[in-house]
């Protein structure tokens, strides 16, 4: 093993000077003054702050200042970060046709004006329920809305992201069924499958991939490998290619052999129009809540969703908010069923998850509330119809054709006449962020391009994409 060269901070242009230790200089985040410091030391009964560190063996003390760039003032910091931000081509600077698990949806202004309030933003996990009714109730509302959306009985207060939620759901399926294998379709997001392998490898839970056929999961393919060892069949719906799965048939098949059907949902807006997983027989829904009012954020923080049937609630990982009453009989909310969790059960817990994505769940609750019963359906339809329009127009171009048959939601795969990476480079010159080239995950699909059209895209933008593709 070769020792790695120590990082040289001077390599970065703005980090060439070494900061002097600025002890004694008053910092705006640190209120204590020198006079107060002296008073406090007197109360403690020591004569210096150094004396408070006497228990740290000298052998492990740092005998030099940290080698860090000098402290920036606020205006300098803001200017520096603006410069870095401006080096990125974000979805305000380019017209985005990229999805693949992260979606450019409109986030109504109210969402982050509310979720970003300091009262929510700077609070901790609600360990003192009586003082924290705001975030607890928002968590309960989020759980309730997610149940409505997915058609499931119970949802938890959040997981890290869609991929890790899917992996934890697979472990949950193992615990429920006492079986040691899961079948996963290759039409599930490639990164979700990678995370699934990472999580399950040490647990002796085997992962068997069932190849997609023509962009969706073949019922016969699953039937061939389903066995009494199968804890769960994992599909994504709509799947990674944007297509609708024969979900009800797959669920029925899994259930025949005593396995669970675990459905990953990477695009929950689809549930505004599509039959919810609870209605076609899914046992666990795991997924990505980023589309519900959360920013793209270069991939995080995102919102892991997890919902299931009532009978499995005590096997769920993560936090659950429940309603109860106070001593006066008023409704109130608490974290509940905590005997599943790490701080009580330690090594026997259903998961180690502790800090989750509570604020993003709150943002999702606000988003679902403002969209409401009608708006959610409206946005789902806008996605579906605009994507259908783009799909037809692009595949009418010479050399472009649909890679897979079958209905889609807001994403579809196009076979391209030249490498999708090359097309993206050309489109970028015109301010368009093209779709995801699939060759990176599916070598046999190197000429395939996964495009996404959300409600954010206008007909003129779609027409411009089509016209540019025609001219390439």
């Amino acid at each position: 093993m070769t020792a790695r060269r120590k990082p040289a901070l001077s390599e970065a242009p703005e980090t060439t000077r070494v900061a002097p230790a600025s002890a004694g200089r008053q910092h705006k985040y640190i209120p204590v003054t020198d006079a107060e410091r002296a008073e406090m030391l007197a109360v403690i009964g020591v004569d210096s702050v150094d004396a408070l560190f006497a228990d740290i063996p000298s052998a492990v003390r740092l005998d030099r200042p940290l080698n860090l760039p000098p402290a920036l003032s606020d205006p300098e910091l803001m200017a520096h970060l603006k410069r870095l931000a401006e080096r990125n081509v974000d979805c305000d600077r380019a017209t985005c046709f990229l999805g693949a698990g992260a979606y450019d949806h409109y986030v109504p202004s109210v969402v982050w004006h509310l979720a970003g309030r300091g009262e929510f933003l700077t609070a901790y996990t609600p360990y003192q329920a009586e003082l924290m009714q705001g975030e607890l109730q928002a968590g309960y509302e989020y759980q309730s809305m997610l149940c409505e959306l997915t058609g499931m009985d119970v949802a938890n207060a959040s997981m890290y992201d869609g991929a890790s939620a899917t992996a934890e759901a697979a472990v949950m399926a193992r615990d429920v069924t006492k079986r040691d294998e899961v079948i996963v379709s290759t039409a599930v997001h490639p990164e979700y499958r990678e995370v699934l392998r990472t999580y399950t490898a040490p647990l002796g839970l085997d992962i068997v991939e069932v190849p997609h056929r023509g962009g969706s999961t073949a019922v016969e393919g699953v039937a061939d490998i389903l066995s009494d060892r199968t804890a769960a069949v994992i599909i994504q719906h709509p799947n990674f290619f944007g297509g609708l799965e024969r979900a009800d048939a797959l669920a029925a098949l899994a259930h025949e052999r005593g396995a669970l059907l675990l459905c990953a949902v990477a695009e929950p807006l689809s549930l505004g129009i599509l039959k919810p997983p609870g209605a076609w027989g899914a046992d666990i829904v795991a997924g990505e809540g980023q589309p519900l009012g959360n920013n793209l954020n270069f991939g995080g923080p995102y919102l892991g969703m997890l919902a299931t049937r009532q009978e499995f609630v005590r096997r769920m990982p993560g936090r659950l908010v429940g309603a109860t009453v106070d001593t006066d009989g008023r409704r109130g909310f608490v974290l509940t069923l905590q005997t599943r969790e790490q701080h009580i059960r330690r090594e026997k817990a259903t998961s180690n998850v502790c800090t989750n994505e509570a604020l993003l769940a709150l943002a999702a609750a606000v988003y679902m509330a403002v969209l409401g019963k009608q708006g959610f359906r409206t946005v789902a339809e806008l996605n579906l119809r605009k994507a259908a329009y783009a799909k037809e127009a692009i595949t009418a171009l010479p050399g472009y054709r649909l890679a897979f048959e079958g209905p889609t939601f807001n994403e579809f795969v196009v076979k391209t006449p030249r490498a999708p990476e090359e097309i993206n480079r050309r489109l970028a010159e015109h301010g368009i962020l093209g779709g995801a080239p699939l060759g990176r995950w599916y070598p046999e699909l190197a000429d395939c391009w996964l495009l996404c059209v959300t409600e954010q895209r206008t007909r003129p933008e779609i027409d411009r994409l089509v016209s540019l593709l025609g001219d390439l």
Partner: protein
Amino acid sequence: MNRRARDFPVVFELSVPGRVGSSYPDLDVPERPLAELGILPQDLRETPPELPEVSEPDVVRHYTRLSHRNFSIDEGFYPLGSCTMKYNPKIHEDVARLSGFARLHPYAAEDHVQGALHVLWELERLLAEVSGMDRVTFQPAAGAHGELTGLLMVRAYFESRGERRTKVIVPDSAHGTNPATASMVGYQVVTVKSDARGNIDAGALRAAMDDSVAALMLTNPNTLGLFEEHITGVEAIVHGRGGQMYLDGANFNAMLGVTRPGDQGFDVMHMNLHKTFTTPHGGGGPGAGAVGVKAHLAPFLPLPTVERDGDRYRLEYDRPQSIGKIRAFYGNFGNLVRAYAYLRSMGAGGLRQIAETAVLNANYMLARLRGAFELPYDRLCKHEFVLSGSRQKKRYGVTTKDMAKRILDYGFHAPTIYFPLIVDEAIMIEPTETESKRTMDEFIDAMLAIDAEARDNADVVKTAPHATPVTRLDEVRAARHPDLRWKPPQ
């Protein structure tokens, strides 16, 4: 009077059929029958999701009122031990929401994300210097996720050497996530007791340590707020039998610029960026759990890493020994921007001031409270300390829980209670460096007043809280009759 009428409404109860809270453009492409688009009736939902029907003002009032029923660092003192509830700078919110970061798609081409990769690359160097580690990954979404990542790397490391180790040692004072993580990675958990000074018991550790042990998971300063005085001896015992030293970095705040985990002999550690590096906790996340490793563990880092060639940054996936991916994309990037901003605004001197002041504040509070409460481990503390409410329980029948609830009436959040498990009626207090002497004095006065109340008027403590939006909540009922979602009244 109908009791329910006094309940604060849930958003569903504000719903009026026909109200809307959002506005979207009309469809600008032809509206064709869904069947023509290949969508069949059986694909469609039969009824819309029963989301609330509310106007935008309804929503704004509802969640603003909910925010008033919450307690935050912005409002007041939050001395939750082990949670490092320090002030969260507002400028961090502005920089994280710059559209170049907030509106950046994770699969945008590498040419288009150079600014974001610069942040990741430089943040790795900054945290490597602060921690004394060689490399740092930002993939984990939280501290426990970092533990999982770290132990998966330990496991991969031993596999690469052809060694099968089956156990992980945790002290009895450890966070619950430590043993839970060890289980998730397939390790058997061995618990080692603490000694009379609150250190891990060296004799017990030596007895437990053999070549079946993959790692010791240690928190330092530990959950009693005490620095492991024999850290070099502990390191020798673990490394002497070929084990790895894992640091739970939840308490890193006390060490910044003073001592580095890498120099203490730790091979792998996680840093809770939402604690030490002040990314806001959001009421339970999002966090960000950076994991630092020494060079021998670097080949196993999760995918991808961020590398630099000349002036260009890139994501590296070609790492054959990697443990793989532990979440999609690249971690909780928005929080990484905040942590980066923090490090750049504090500098080396500022970081050291953080540690020194956090420790000063904790020792000051301890000095003023030690007379009224039991102090099970009487030593200099670091950033936090643990008292016991056992005296009040024994004398007045008032529990730590009662006193914690009473603290809420005084306008403070309560300390962490009943943790660590090795202290009876534990009260764990962490002021952080961002609290003023005046705030700490007010809190101390409240604690002393509650001690007096416990003696003179125990009932007011036992029935607390009285000044919160609801009085004490029935947790037993919540667990026995789970009500986890709202349903319309039948």
